[in-house]
């Protein structure tokens, strides 16, 4: 009987410990695969049509999950898909193709 209790206790604690380690692993993955947000400062966005064009153009990019354009701050904010990134070198020609001037990506 004593042996059974010891074995059951060992199984209980080991499963608890295993569950904890699974949770840690999942959390690590979430950290590793967290969404990247890019805030692109531009010049020349003077009309709502520019806002629409910027949204459409960036949504075409496979790395982009969603786009938000703030015309007051002249900011295009990209929410990238998990595990995806978009370098400044790739962002600049997209902004230029819209006829806008790329200023920087806010860090």
């Amino acid at each position, binding site marked *: 009987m004593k042996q059974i209790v010891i074995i059951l206790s060992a199984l209980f604690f080991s499963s608890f410990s295993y569950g904890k380690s699974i949770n840690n692993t999942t959390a690590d993955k979430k950290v590793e695969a967290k969404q990247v947000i890019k805030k692109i400062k531009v*010049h*020349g*966005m003077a*009309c*709502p049509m520019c806002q629409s064009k910027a*949204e459409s153009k960036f949504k075409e990019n496979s790395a982009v999950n969603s786009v938000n354009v703030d015309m007051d701050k002249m900011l295009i904010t990209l929410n990238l898909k998990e595990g995806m990134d978009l370098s400044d070198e790739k962002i600049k020609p997209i902004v230029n193709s819209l*006829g*806008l*001037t790329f200023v920087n990506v806010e860090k």
Partner: protein
Amino acid sequence: MGSSHQKFQSVELIYSPKYWLGTGLITERSPDSWESTSIQIGYLAKRWNLPAAQGNFYILAGPGYGTRFNQDDTKVTDLLYRVGLQGDYETRRIYTFAKYTEQRFFNTNGLINNRLELRAGYAPYLAKFTELNSWVILKTVFTNEFKDVNYTPTVRLFYKNFLVDIGLDLDGEAQLNFMVRH
């Protein structure tokens, strides 16, 4: 884009493969004076992108075909060229625009029509693309056909890709301008 006024009507179909290039077909007429259909190539020669504003300067040119109705009831129909310059400067609150176009017959270099249009506008409130945008605009037109300058106070409304200008000039004549962007 279409524009209608008792003294001037036009329909423009413009395709812009790049932001700096617009190509299309323009049909214009001034009843009892002239009418023309021409190809237009619009080239953005210079753009100024400022922190909260944009300025543009375009060169317009293209060949066409048109008719001028003379005062002695004769008419001349021939190939023509249409050239022009266009500039604009706008913020989210202020809109200014100037466009000069001239049409001449190729063979005789005779003037068919010239037209200078100036616009100055103000947006009473700021709106996003998905909201109704409104502008109050004063349009001023000088042409070789009329001695008097034509002033047209206009309300511009645009929502998403649809734009309409509704104006009434100082002679009481209505002006309608409609534009759809794709």
